[in-house]
Protein backbone atom coordinates (compact mmCIF):
# COMPACT_ATOMS: atom_id res chain seq x y z
CA UNK A 1 0.00 0.00 0.00
CA UNK A 2 1.14 3.55 -0.66
CA UNK A 3 0.11 7.17 -0.83
CA UNK A 4 0.83 8.80 -4.21
CA UNK A 5 1.39 12.55 -4.58
CA UNK A 6 1.04 14.17 -8.01
CA UNK A 7 3.46 16.93 -8.98
CA UNK A 8 2.50 19.72 -11.35
CA UNK A 9 4.76 21.85 -13.55
CA UNK A 10 4.45 24.56 -16.13
CA UNK A 11 6.89 25.91 -18.68
CA UNK A 12 9.87 24.07 -17.30
CA UNK A 13 9.28 24.60 -13.57
CA UNK A 14 7.64 22.59 -10.85
CA UNK A 15 4.88 24.60 -9.24
CA UNK A 16 4.95 25.31 -5.49
CA UNK A 17 1.89 23.17 -4.65
CA UNK A 18 3.86 20.16 -5.89
CA UNK A 19 6.07 20.40 -2.80
CA UNK A 20 3.12 21.05 -0.49
CA UNK A 21 1.31 17.94 -1.66
CA UNK A 22 4.44 15.98 -0.68
CA UNK A 23 4.03 17.23 2.90
CA UNK A 24 0.32 16.39 2.95
CA UNK A 25 1.16 13.01 1.48
CA UNK A 26 3.89 12.29 4.02
CA UNK A 27 1.53 13.14 6.91
CA UNK A 28 -1.13 10.83 5.50
CA UNK A 29 1.39 8.06 4.84
CA UNK A 30 2.62 8.38 8.43
CA UNK A 31 -0.91 8.09 9.78
CA UNK A 32 -1.36 4.92 7.74
CA UNK A 33 2.16 3.66 8.39
CA UNK A 34 2.96 3.36 4.72
CA UNK A 35 5.20 4.73 1.97
CA UNK A 36 4.93 8.00 0.09
CA UNK A 37 5.38 7.86 -3.66
CA UNK A 38 5.39 10.82 -6.00
CA UNK A 39 4.78 11.00 -9.72
CA UNK A 40 5.76 13.58 -12.30
CA UNK A 41 4.60 13.40 -15.92
CA UNK A 42 6.06 15.38 -18.80
CA UNK A 43 8.78 18.00 -18.98
CA UNK A 44 12.36 17.40 -17.85
CA UNK A 45 11.34 14.54 -15.59
CA UNK A 46 14.87 13.73 -14.40
CA UNK A 47 15.46 17.23 -13.16
CA UNK A 48 11.97 17.37 -11.67
CA UNK A 49 12.55 14.06 -9.88
CA UNK A 50 15.79 15.39 -8.41
CA UNK A 51 13.93 18.44 -7.10
CA UNK A 52 11.08 16.37 -5.71
CA UNK A 53 13.53 14.12 -3.87
CA UNK A 54 12.91 15.66 -0.48
CA UNK A 55 12.82 14.22 2.98
CA UNK A 56 10.06 11.68 3.47
CA UNK A 57 9.56 10.69 -0.16
CA UNK A 58 10.19 6.97 -0.69
CA UNK A 59 9.75 6.50 -4.43
CA UNK A 60 9.47 8.93 -7.35
CA UNK A 61 7.95 7.73 -10.61
CA UNK A 62 8.76 9.61 -13.79
CA UNK A 63 6.81 9.48 -17.03
CA UNK A 64 8.78 11.08 -19.83
CA UNK A 65 6.08 12.24 -22.23
CA UNK A 66 5.91 15.69 -23.82
CA UNK A 67 7.00 19.06 -22.54
CA UNK A 68 4.04 20.28 -20.55
CA UNK A 69 1.76 18.86 -17.90
CA UNK A 70 -0.92 17.10 -19.94
CA UNK A 71 -4.11 16.00 -18.21
CA UNK A 72 -4.85 13.00 -20.43
CA UNK A 73 -1.32 11.64 -20.11
CA UNK A 74 -1.33 12.14 -16.37
CA UNK A 75 -4.66 10.38 -15.90
CA UNK A 76 -3.41 7.35 -17.84
CA UNK A 77 -0.10 7.24 -16.00
CA UNK A 78 -1.59 7.52 -12.51
CA UNK A 79 -4.31 5.03 -13.36
CA UNK A 80 -1.71 2.46 -14.38
CA UNK A 81 0.50 3.16 -11.40
CA UNK A 82 -2.34 3.01 -8.89
CA UNK A 83 -3.09 -0.56 -9.88
CA UNK A 84 0.54 -1.67 -10.06
CA UNK A 85 1.65 -0.12 -6.78
CA UNK A 86 -1.42 -0.68 -4.63
CA UNK A 87 -1.94 3.05 -4.18
CA UNK A 88 -4.55 3.66 -1.50
CA UNK A 89 -4.75 7.44 -1.76
CA UNK A 90 -3.87 9.74 -4.62
CA UNK A 91 -3.19 13.32 -3.51
CA UNK A 92 -3.37 16.09 -6.08
CA UNK A 93 -2.84 19.83 -5.74
CA UNK A 94 -6.16 21.68 -5.84
CA UNK A 95 -4.99 23.81 -8.75
CA UNK A 96 -6.51 24.41 -12.17
CA UNK A 97 -4.56 21.49 -13.63
CA UNK A 98 -5.10 19.38 -10.51
CA UNK A 99 -8.83 19.84 -10.95
CA UNK A 100 -8.51 19.04 -14.65
CA UNK A 101 -7.02 15.68 -13.65
CA UNK A 102 -8.28 14.43 -10.28
CA UNK A 103 -11.99 14.00 -11.18
CA UNK A 104 -11.19 11.95 -14.29
CA UNK A 105 -8.76 9.90 -12.27
CA UNK A 106 -11.36 9.19 -9.60
CA UNK A 107 -13.82 8.21 -12.29
CA UNK A 108 -11.37 5.89 -14.05
CA UNK A 109 -10.35 4.27 -10.79
CA UNK A 110 -13.93 4.19 -9.51
CA UNK A 111 -12.96 5.95 -6.31
CA UNK A 112 -14.52 8.66 -4.20
CA UNK A 113 -13.19 12.18 -4.73
CA UNK A 114 -12.94 15.01 -2.24
CA UNK A 115 -11.50 18.31 -3.40
CA UNK A 116 -9.97 21.37 -1.79
CA UNK A 117 -9.00 19.75 1.51
CA UNK A 118 -7.51 22.08 4.11
CA UNK A 119 -6.92 19.29 6.62
CA UNK A 120 -6.65 15.52 6.43
CA UNK A 121 -7.07 12.97 9.20
CA UNK A 122 -7.34 9.21 9.44
CA UNK A 123 -10.25 7.87 11.49
CA UNK A 124 -11.33 4.22 11.62
CA UNK A 125 -9.01 3.49 8.69
CA UNK A 126 -10.80 6.05 6.54
CA UNK A 127 -9.77 9.53 5.51
CA UNK A 128 -11.61 12.50 6.94
CA UNK A 129 -11.30 15.70 4.94
CA UNK A 130 -11.89 19.17 6.32
CA UNK A 131 -13.03 21.62 3.66
CA UNK A 132 -14.97 24.82 3.26
CA UNK A 133 -18.56 25.10 2.18
CA UNK A 134 -20.75 28.11 1.35
CA UNK A 135 -17.88 30.20 0.06
CA UNK A 136 -15.93 29.83 3.29
CA UNK A 137 -18.76 30.79 5.61
CA UNK A 138 -18.82 27.24 6.96
CA UNK A 139 -16.28 24.49 7.32
CA UNK A 140 -17.24 20.84 7.29
CA UNK A 141 -15.67 17.49 8.00
CA UNK A 142 -16.35 14.87 5.39
CA UNK A 143 -15.70 11.16 5.87
CA UNK A 144 -14.61 9.71 2.55
CA UNK A 145 -16.10 6.27 2.11
CA UNK A 146 -13.69 3.45 1.37
CA UNK A 147 -10.04 2.52 1.65
CA UNK A 148 -9.05 4.07 -1.69
CA UNK A 149 -9.56 7.72 -2.57
CA UNK A 150 -8.53 10.64 -4.71
CA UNK A 151 -8.16 13.91 -2.78
CA UNK A 152 -7.04 17.36 -3.83
CA UNK A 153 -5.39 19.62 -1.28
CA UNK A 154 -5.62 23.39 -1.19
CA UNK A 155 -2.41 25.26 -2.02
CA UNK A 156 -0.85 27.16 0.86
CA UNK A 157 -2.30 24.93 3.60
CA UNK A 158 0.65 22.59 3.99
CA UNK A 159 4.27 23.74 4.12
CA UNK A 160 6.53 22.74 1.25
CA UNK A 161 8.52 19.54 1.85
CA UNK A 162 12.16 20.33 2.57
CA UNK A 163 15.45 18.58 3.14
CA UNK A 164 17.33 16.18 0.90
CA UNK A 165 15.59 12.85 0.43
CA UNK A 166 16.82 9.43 -0.58
CA UNK A 167 13.94 8.36 -2.75
CA UNK A 168 14.25 5.66 -5.33
CA UNK A 169 13.71 7.25 -8.74
CA UNK A 170 12.04 5.02 -11.29
CA UNK A 171 11.06 5.55 -14.89
CA UNK A 172 7.50 4.27 -14.80
CA UNK A 173 6.71 1.52 -17.23
CA UNK A 174 3.45 2.88 -18.59
CA UNK A 175 2.15 2.85 -22.13
CA UNK A 176 0.41 6.07 -23.08
CA UNK A 177 -2.45 5.52 -25.52
CA UNK A 178 -2.12 8.54 -27.82
CA UNK A 179 -5.63 8.10 -29.15
CA UNK A 180 -6.86 8.98 -25.67
CA UNK A 181 -4.89 12.23 -25.55
CA UNK A 182 -7.65 14.46 -26.84
CA UNK A 183 -6.81 17.86 -25.38
CA UNK A 184 -3.48 19.35 -26.41
CA UNK A 185 -1.67 22.36 -25.05
CA UNK A 186 -0.68 24.62 -27.94
CA UNK A 187 0.75 27.55 -26.01
CA UNK A 188 0.51 30.03 -23.19
CA UNK A 189 -0.19 33.70 -22.97
CA UNK A 190 0.06 36.32 -20.26
CA UNK A 191 -3.16 38.21 -19.78
CA UNK A 192 -3.57 41.94 -19.61
CA UNK A 193 -0.06 43.21 -20.12
CA UNK A 194 -1.12 46.84 -19.74
CA UNK A 195 0.94 49.86 -18.74
CA UNK A 196 0.10 49.64 -15.05
CA UNK A 197 1.96 47.10 -12.97
CA UNK A 198 0.03 46.69 -9.72
CA UNK A 199 2.78 44.45 -8.33
CA UNK A 200 5.09 47.50 -8.22
CA UNK A 201 2.71 49.77 -6.31
CA UNK A 202 3.46 50.79 -2.71
CA UNK A 203 -0.17 51.56 -1.97
CA UNK A 204 -3.11 49.79 -3.56
CA UNK A 205 -6.72 50.91 -3.35
CA UNK A 206 -8.51 47.71 -4.26
CA UNK A 207 -12.18 47.55 -5.10
CA UNK A 208 -14.66 44.66 -5.08
CA UNK A 209 -18.26 43.75 -5.66
CA UNK A 210 -19.39 46.17 -2.93
CA UNK A 211 -18.97 49.08 -5.35
CA UNK A 212 -22.19 47.82 -7.00
CA UNK A 213 -22.09 49.81 -10.24
CA UNK A 214 -19.43 50.71 -12.79
CA UNK A 215 -20.33 54.40 -12.41
CA UNK A 216 -19.31 54.24 -8.75
CA UNK A 217 -15.69 53.38 -9.59
CA UNK A 218 -14.93 57.11 -9.75
CA UNK A 219 -15.07 57.03 -5.94
CA UNK A 220 -12.13 54.65 -5.58
CA UNK A 221 -10.30 56.41 -8.39
CA UNK A 222 -10.67 59.70 -6.53
CA UNK A 223 -9.43 58.06 -3.34
CA UNK A 224 -6.44 56.55 -5.15
CA UNK A 225 -5.64 60.02 -6.55
CA UNK A 226 -5.84 61.60 -3.10
CA UNK A 227 -3.59 58.90 -1.63
CA UNK A 228 -1.23 58.79 -4.60
CA UNK A 229 -2.09 55.11 -4.85
CA UNK A 230 -2.87 52.63 -7.62
CA UNK A 231 -6.29 51.08 -8.23
CA UNK A 232 -6.59 47.30 -8.24
CA UNK A 233 -9.58 45.01 -7.86
CA UNK A 234 -11.03 41.61 -7.06
CA UNK A 235 -12.26 39.26 -9.73
CA UNK A 236 -15.91 40.32 -10.24
CA UNK A 237 -14.84 43.82 -11.28
CA UNK A 238 -12.65 42.38 -14.04
CA UNK A 239 -15.29 39.80 -15.01
CA UNK A 240 -17.67 42.72 -15.55
CA UNK A 241 -14.99 44.45 -17.62
CA UNK A 242 -15.13 47.52 -15.39
CA UNK A 243 -11.34 47.33 -15.06
CA UNK A 244 -8.80 45.58 -17.30
CA UNK A 245 -7.42 42.15 -16.30
CA UNK A 246 -4.01 43.56 -15.30
CA UNK A 247 -5.70 45.16 -12.27
CA UNK A 248 -6.91 41.86 -10.83
CA UNK A 249 -5.45 40.68 -7.53
CA UNK A 250 -5.80 37.00 -6.65
CA UNK A 251 -5.07 33.43 -7.60
CA UNK A 252 -5.88 33.94 -11.27
CA UNK A 253 -4.61 37.52 -11.27
CA UNK A 254 -1.55 39.10 -9.72
CA UNK A 255 0.10 38.44 -6.39
CA UNK A 256 0.80 41.79 -4.74
CA UNK A 257 2.79 42.79 -1.67
CA UNK A 258 2.34 46.55 -1.22
CA UNK A 259 3.10 48.50 1.96
CA UNK A 260 -0.59 49.24 2.33
CA UNK A 261 -3.50 47.35 0.80
CA UNK A 262 -6.85 49.05 1.16
CA UNK A 263 -9.66 46.56 0.41
CA UNK A 264 -12.91 48.35 -0.34
CA UNK A 265 -16.07 46.30 -0.65
CA UNK A 266 -14.09 43.10 -1.03
CA UNK A 267 -15.42 40.11 0.90
CA UNK A 268 -12.10 38.29 0.86
CA UNK A 269 -12.70 34.98 -0.89
CA UNK A 270 -9.79 32.59 -0.56
CA UNK A 271 -8.80 33.14 -4.21
CA UNK A 272 -8.47 36.86 -3.57
CA UNK A 273 -6.63 36.50 -0.27
CA UNK A 274 -4.07 34.28 -2.01
CA UNK A 275 -3.05 37.31 -4.03
CA UNK A 276 -2.71 39.92 -1.28
CA UNK A 277 -2.02 38.26 2.06
CA UNK A 278 1.65 39.22 1.82
CA UNK A 279 0.84 42.94 2.03
CA UNK A 280 2.51 44.74 4.96
CA UNK A 281 -0.62 46.46 6.22
CA UNK A 282 -4.11 45.42 5.20
CA UNK A 283 -7.08 47.72 5.77
CA UNK A 284 -10.61 46.58 4.93
CA UNK A 285 -13.81 48.56 4.58
CA UNK A 286 -16.90 46.37 4.43
CA UNK A 287 -20.49 46.45 5.64
CA UNK A 288 -20.34 42.82 6.78
CA UNK A 289 -18.32 42.42 9.97
CA UNK A 290 -18.18 38.66 9.39
CA UNK A 291 -16.65 39.00 5.90
CA UNK A 292 -13.51 36.85 5.66
CA UNK A 293 -11.45 39.89 4.60
CA UNK A 294 -11.49 40.96 8.26
CA UNK A 295 -9.81 37.65 9.23
CA UNK A 296 -6.70 38.76 7.42
CA UNK A 297 -6.96 42.56 7.79
CA UNK A 298 -4.87 44.47 10.32
CA UNK A 299 -7.36 47.33 10.48
CA UNK A 300 -11.00 47.50 9.56
CA UNK A 301 -14.02 49.69 9.27
CA UNK A 302 -17.38 48.00 9.46
CA UNK A 303 -19.31 50.47 7.41
CA UNK A 304 -20.79 51.58 4.14
CA UNK A 305 -18.09 52.37 1.60
CA UNK A 306 -20.33 55.04 0.10
CA UNK A 307 -20.02 56.95 3.37
CA UNK A 308 -16.51 56.01 4.45
CA UNK A 309 -14.70 56.53 1.13
CA UNK A 310 -15.98 60.11 0.57
CA UNK A 311 -15.01 60.98 4.16
CA UNK A 312 -11.55 59.54 3.54
CA UNK A 313 -11.15 61.46 0.27
CA UNK A 314 -11.98 64.65 2.16
CA UNK A 315 -9.46 63.81 4.89
CA UNK A 316 -6.77 63.83 2.21
CA UNK A 317 -8.02 67.01 0.54
CA UNK A 318 -9.39 65.32 -2.54
CA UNK A 319 -12.52 66.17 -4.43
CA UNK A 320 -15.46 63.83 -3.83
CA UNK A 321 -17.16 62.86 -7.09
CA UNK A 322 -20.94 62.61 -7.26
CA UNK A 323 -22.20 59.05 -7.48
Amino acid sequence: MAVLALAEHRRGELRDPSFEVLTAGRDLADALDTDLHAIVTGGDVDEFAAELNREGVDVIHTVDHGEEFTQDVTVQAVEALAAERDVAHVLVPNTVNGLATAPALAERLDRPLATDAVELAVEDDGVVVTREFHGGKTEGTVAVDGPETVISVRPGEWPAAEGAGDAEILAADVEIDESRVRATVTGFQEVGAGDVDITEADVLVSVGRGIEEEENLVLVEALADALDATVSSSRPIVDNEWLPPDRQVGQSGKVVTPDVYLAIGISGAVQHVAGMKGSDTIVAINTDASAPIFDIADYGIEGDLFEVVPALIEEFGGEVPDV
Partner: protein
Amino acid sequence: MKVLVTVSEVATVDDEFEIEELGVDPRYLTYDLNEWDDYAVEEAVQLAEAGDDVEVVTVTIGPERSEETIRQALAKGADRAIRVWDEALEDVAVLDPMTKARVLAAVVEDEEPDLVLSGVQTGDDSFGATGVALASAVDFAWAAVVNHLDYEVGDDVATVHRELEGGVEELAEVAVPAVLTIQTGINEPRYASLRGIRQAQSKPLDVQALADFGLSGEDLPLDLDLTGLAVPEVESDVQFFTGDATDAAGQLAELLREKGVGA
Protein backbone atom coordinates in the same frame (compact mmCIF):
# COMPACT_ATOMS: atom_id res chain seq x y z
CA MET B 1 -26.02 20.09 -33.10
CA LYS B 2 -26.92 19.86 -29.46
CA VAL B 3 -25.34 21.66 -26.51
CA LEU B 4 -26.14 20.37 -23.04
CA VAL B 5 -25.61 22.79 -20.17
CA THR B 6 -25.50 21.51 -16.62
CA VAL B 7 -27.10 24.01 -14.27
CA SER B 8 -27.34 23.96 -10.51
CA GLU B 9 -29.40 25.82 -8.03
CA VAL B 10 -27.14 26.97 -5.23
CA ALA B 11 -27.80 28.30 -1.78
CA THR B 12 -26.30 31.58 -0.68
CA VAL B 13 -25.95 32.07 3.05
CA ASP B 14 -26.93 35.37 4.69
CA ASP B 15 -24.24 37.35 6.51
CA GLU B 16 -25.77 36.32 9.83
CA PHE B 17 -26.84 32.68 10.05
CA GLU B 18 -27.19 29.66 12.27
CA ILE B 19 -26.17 26.08 11.73
CA GLU B 20 -28.70 23.38 12.49
CA GLU B 21 -27.03 19.98 12.91
CA LEU B 22 -25.37 19.37 9.53
CA GLY B 23 -26.73 22.25 7.56
CA VAL B 24 -27.31 25.96 7.54
CA ASP B 25 -30.75 26.77 8.95
CA PRO B 26 -32.89 27.19 5.80
CA ARG B 27 -34.22 30.51 7.05
CA TYR B 28 -30.81 32.00 6.19
CA LEU B 29 -30.56 30.56 2.69
CA THR B 30 -31.41 32.17 -0.63
CA TYR B 31 -31.52 29.98 -3.73
CA ASP B 32 -30.35 31.12 -7.12
CA LEU B 33 -28.82 29.95 -10.37
CA ASN B 34 -25.16 29.08 -9.83
CA GLU B 35 -23.04 32.01 -11.00
CA TRP B 36 -20.71 29.88 -13.15
CA ASP B 37 -23.65 28.15 -14.82
CA ASP B 38 -25.06 31.53 -15.82
CA TYR B 39 -21.93 32.01 -17.96
CA ALA B 40 -22.22 28.46 -19.31
CA VAL B 41 -25.84 29.08 -20.37
CA GLU B 42 -24.82 32.33 -22.05
CA GLU B 43 -22.00 30.62 -23.94
CA ALA B 44 -24.38 27.92 -25.16
CA VAL B 45 -27.02 30.43 -26.22
CA GLN B 46 -24.38 32.41 -28.12
CA LEU B 47 -23.34 29.23 -29.96
CA ALA B 48 -26.98 28.67 -30.86
CA GLU B 49 -27.36 32.23 -32.11
CA ALA B 50 -24.22 31.96 -34.23
CA GLY B 51 -25.03 28.60 -35.81
CA ASP B 52 -27.94 26.99 -37.58
CA ASP B 53 -30.00 24.33 -35.93
CA VAL B 54 -28.34 24.30 -32.52
CA GLU B 55 -30.45 23.03 -29.66
CA VAL B 56 -29.60 24.10 -26.10
CA VAL B 57 -30.77 21.75 -23.38
CA THR B 58 -30.21 22.30 -19.68
CA VAL B 59 -29.96 19.54 -17.11
CA THR B 60 -30.27 19.95 -13.38
CA ILE B 61 -30.09 17.57 -10.48
CA GLY B 62 -32.46 19.09 -7.99
CA PRO B 63 -35.76 19.01 -6.14
CA GLU B 64 -38.96 20.64 -7.35
CA ARG B 65 -37.93 23.92 -5.70
CA SER B 66 -35.17 24.32 -8.29
CA GLU B 67 -37.61 24.65 -11.20
CA GLU B 68 -37.83 28.40 -10.71
CA THR B 69 -34.06 28.56 -11.17
CA ILE B 70 -34.15 26.28 -14.19
CA ARG B 71 -36.73 28.56 -15.81
CA GLN B 72 -34.19 31.38 -15.61
CA ALA B 73 -31.98 29.48 -18.05
CA LEU B 74 -34.96 28.86 -20.32
CA ALA B 75 -35.80 32.56 -20.16
CA LYS B 76 -32.28 33.37 -21.29
CA GLY B 77 -32.61 31.24 -24.38
CA ALA B 78 -32.21 27.54 -23.62
CA ASP B 79 -34.72 25.47 -25.58
CA ARG B 80 -35.73 22.90 -23.01
CA ALA B 81 -34.83 21.62 -19.60
CA ILE B 82 -34.41 18.31 -17.84
CA ARG B 83 -34.63 17.99 -14.09
CA VAL B 84 -33.51 14.76 -12.49
CA TRP B 85 -34.50 13.96 -8.96
CA ASP B 86 -34.97 10.87 -6.92
CA GLU B 87 -35.81 10.00 -3.36
CA ALA B 88 -32.38 8.38 -3.13
CA LEU B 89 -30.94 11.92 -3.31
CA GLU B 90 -33.33 13.55 -0.89
CA ASP B 91 -31.58 13.29 2.45
CA VAL B 92 -28.03 13.51 1.19
CA ALA B 93 -26.13 16.24 3.06
CA VAL B 94 -23.37 16.53 0.46
CA LEU B 95 -24.00 15.47 -3.10
CA ASP B 96 -20.53 14.41 -4.13
CA PRO B 97 -19.14 15.09 -7.61
CA MET B 98 -18.85 11.42 -8.55
CA THR B 99 -22.54 10.91 -7.82
CA LYS B 100 -23.51 13.98 -9.81
CA ALA B 101 -21.32 12.81 -12.68
CA ARG B 102 -22.96 9.36 -12.62
CA VAL B 103 -26.45 10.87 -12.91
CA LEU B 104 -25.42 13.40 -15.56
CA ALA B 105 -23.65 10.68 -17.54
CA ALA B 106 -26.96 8.86 -17.86
CA VAL B 107 -28.52 12.03 -19.25
CA VAL B 108 -25.64 12.56 -21.69
CA GLU B 109 -25.93 9.01 -22.94
CA ASP B 110 -29.63 9.59 -23.47
CA GLU B 111 -29.35 13.01 -25.11
CA GLU B 112 -26.11 12.48 -27.04
CA PRO B 113 -25.00 16.14 -27.12
CA ASP B 114 -21.96 17.30 -29.10
CA LEU B 115 -20.85 19.69 -26.41
CA VAL B 116 -21.48 19.81 -22.69
CA LEU B 117 -20.90 23.11 -20.91
CA SER B 118 -20.68 23.03 -17.15
CA GLY B 119 -19.84 25.79 -14.67
CA VAL B 120 -16.32 25.42 -13.22
CA GLN B 121 -17.81 24.98 -9.76
CA THR B 122 -20.88 25.64 -7.68
CA GLY B 123 -20.92 28.52 -5.24
CA ASP B 124 -21.98 26.41 -2.27
CA ASP B 125 -20.08 23.10 -2.27
CA SER B 126 -17.33 24.24 -4.64
CA PHE B 127 -15.96 20.83 -5.52
CA GLY B 128 -15.06 22.06 -9.00
CA ALA B 129 -15.03 18.49 -10.23
CA THR B 130 -18.33 17.40 -11.75
CA GLY B 131 -17.65 18.46 -15.34
CA VAL B 132 -14.34 16.63 -15.64
CA ALA B 133 -15.70 13.52 -13.88
CA LEU B 134 -18.64 13.58 -16.29
CA ALA B 135 -16.33 13.80 -19.31
CA SER B 136 -14.46 10.74 -18.15
CA ALA B 137 -17.69 8.85 -17.41
CA VAL B 138 -19.03 9.36 -20.94
CA ASP B 139 -15.61 9.12 -22.56
CA PHE B 140 -15.64 12.69 -23.90
CA ALA B 141 -12.58 14.92 -24.14
CA TRP B 142 -12.56 17.82 -21.73
CA ALA B 143 -11.06 21.20 -20.91
CA ALA B 144 -11.34 22.73 -17.47
CA VAL B 145 -11.64 26.41 -16.54
CA VAL B 146 -12.30 27.72 -20.01
CA ASN B 147 -12.46 31.52 -20.33
CA HIS B 148 -12.46 31.78 -24.10
CA LEU B 149 -14.05 29.46 -26.64
CA ASP B 150 -13.65 29.39 -30.41
CA TYR B 151 -15.97 26.87 -31.91
CA GLU B 152 -18.00 26.73 -35.06
CA VAL B 153 -20.86 24.33 -35.33
CA GLY B 154 -19.73 21.19 -37.06
CA ASP B 155 -16.03 21.53 -36.29
CA ASP B 156 -14.44 18.52 -34.69
CA VAL B 157 -12.03 20.57 -32.60
CA ALA B 158 -12.74 23.41 -30.18
CA THR B 159 -10.01 25.96 -29.49
CA VAL B 160 -10.07 27.19 -25.91
CA HIS B 161 -8.20 29.38 -23.47
CA ARG B 162 -7.92 27.90 -20.01
CA GLU B 163 -7.43 30.29 -17.14
CA LEU B 164 -4.46 29.08 -15.12
CA GLU B 165 -3.08 30.70 -11.98
CA GLY B 166 -1.04 33.89 -11.93
CA GLY B 167 -2.44 35.71 -14.94
CA VAL B 168 -1.47 33.00 -17.42
CA GLU B 169 -3.77 31.37 -19.94
CA GLU B 170 -3.20 28.04 -21.58
CA LEU B 171 -4.21 27.70 -25.21
CA ALA B 172 -5.53 24.26 -25.99
CA GLU B 173 -7.30 22.27 -28.63
CA VAL B 174 -9.98 19.85 -27.56
CA ALA B 175 -11.56 17.14 -29.65
CA VAL B 176 -15.36 17.25 -29.86
CA PRO B 177 -17.52 15.75 -28.35
CA ALA B 178 -16.23 17.43 -25.23
CA VAL B 179 -17.13 18.73 -21.82
CA LEU B 180 -15.92 22.27 -21.20
CA THR B 181 -16.05 23.74 -17.72
CA ILE B 182 -16.84 27.43 -18.03
CA GLN B 183 -15.20 30.16 -15.98
CA THR B 184 -16.85 33.43 -15.02
CA GLY B 185 -15.90 36.34 -17.25
CA ILE B 186 -15.93 34.30 -20.47
CA ASN B 187 -18.88 36.40 -21.67
CA GLU B 188 -21.44 38.83 -20.38
CA PRO B 189 -24.51 36.87 -19.29
CA ARG B 190 -27.70 38.51 -20.49
CA TYR B 191 -30.65 39.42 -18.37
CA ALA B 192 -33.79 37.58 -19.27
CA SER B 193 -36.19 39.73 -21.25
CA LEU B 194 -39.85 39.91 -20.28
CA ARG B 195 -40.63 38.08 -23.48
CA GLY B 196 -38.06 35.45 -22.62
CA ILE B 197 -39.55 35.00 -19.17
CA ARG B 198 -43.01 34.55 -20.68
CA GLN B 199 -41.75 32.07 -23.25
CA ALA B 200 -39.90 30.10 -20.60
CA GLN B 201 -43.20 29.19 -18.99
CA SER B 202 -44.21 27.19 -22.04
CA LYS B 203 -40.86 25.58 -22.83
CA PRO B 204 -40.55 21.87 -22.01
CA LEU B 205 -39.23 20.96 -18.56
CA ASP B 206 -39.02 17.21 -18.21
CA VAL B 207 -38.81 15.71 -14.77
CA GLN B 208 -37.05 12.38 -14.64
CA ALA B 209 -36.17 9.88 -11.97
CA LEU B 210 -33.15 7.60 -11.83
CA ALA B 211 -35.29 4.68 -12.99
CA ASP B 212 -35.98 6.51 -16.27
CA PHE B 213 -32.30 6.01 -17.05
CA GLY B 214 -32.18 2.46 -15.76
CA LEU B 215 -30.44 3.56 -12.58
CA SER B 216 -31.34 3.11 -8.95
CA GLY B 217 -30.05 4.58 -5.71
CA GLU B 218 -27.81 1.52 -5.43
CA ASP B 219 -25.86 2.64 -8.50
CA LEU B 220 -24.87 5.95 -6.95
CA PRO B 221 -21.49 6.27 -5.25
CA LEU B 222 -22.76 8.70 -2.57
CA ASP B 223 -19.43 8.38 -0.85
CA LEU B 224 -18.91 11.64 0.97
CA ASP B 225 -20.47 11.64 4.41
CA LEU B 226 -20.72 15.03 6.10
CA THR B 227 -19.88 14.46 9.77
CA GLY B 228 -19.67 18.02 11.05
CA LEU B 229 -20.36 21.58 10.00
CA ALA B 230 -19.27 24.69 11.85
CA VAL B 231 -18.38 28.31 11.42
CA PRO B 232 -14.62 28.29 10.98
CA GLU B 233 -12.61 29.55 13.88
CA VAL B 234 -11.03 32.84 13.10
CA GLU B 235 -7.63 33.92 14.27
CA SER B 236 -8.27 37.50 13.42
CA ASP B 237 -6.52 40.31 15.23
CA VAL B 238 -8.15 43.04 13.20
CA GLN B 239 -8.45 46.40 14.94
CA PHE B 240 -11.72 48.10 14.07
CA PHE B 241 -12.05 51.86 13.77
CA THR B 242 -15.40 52.68 15.26
CA GLY B 243 -17.79 55.60 15.32
CA ASP B 244 -19.70 57.03 12.37
CA ALA B 245 -18.21 57.08 8.89
CA THR B 246 -16.46 60.41 9.42
CA ASP B 247 -14.93 59.34 12.74
CA ALA B 248 -13.78 56.02 11.38
CA ALA B 249 -12.37 57.64 8.24
CA GLY B 250 -10.53 60.16 10.44
CA GLN B 251 -8.86 57.41 12.44
CA LEU B 252 -7.96 55.52 9.28
CA ALA B 253 -6.51 58.71 7.76
CA GLU B 254 -4.32 59.12 10.80
CA LEU B 255 -3.01 55.57 10.43
CA LEU B 256 -2.38 56.03 6.72
CA ARG B 257 -0.44 59.24 7.37
CA GLU B 258 1.68 57.42 9.94
CA LYS B 259 2.49 54.91 7.21
CA GLY B 260 3.52 57.75 4.91
CA VAL B 261 0.52 57.39 2.61
CA GLY B 262 -0.77 60.49 0.83
CA ALA B 263 1.87 62.60 2.50
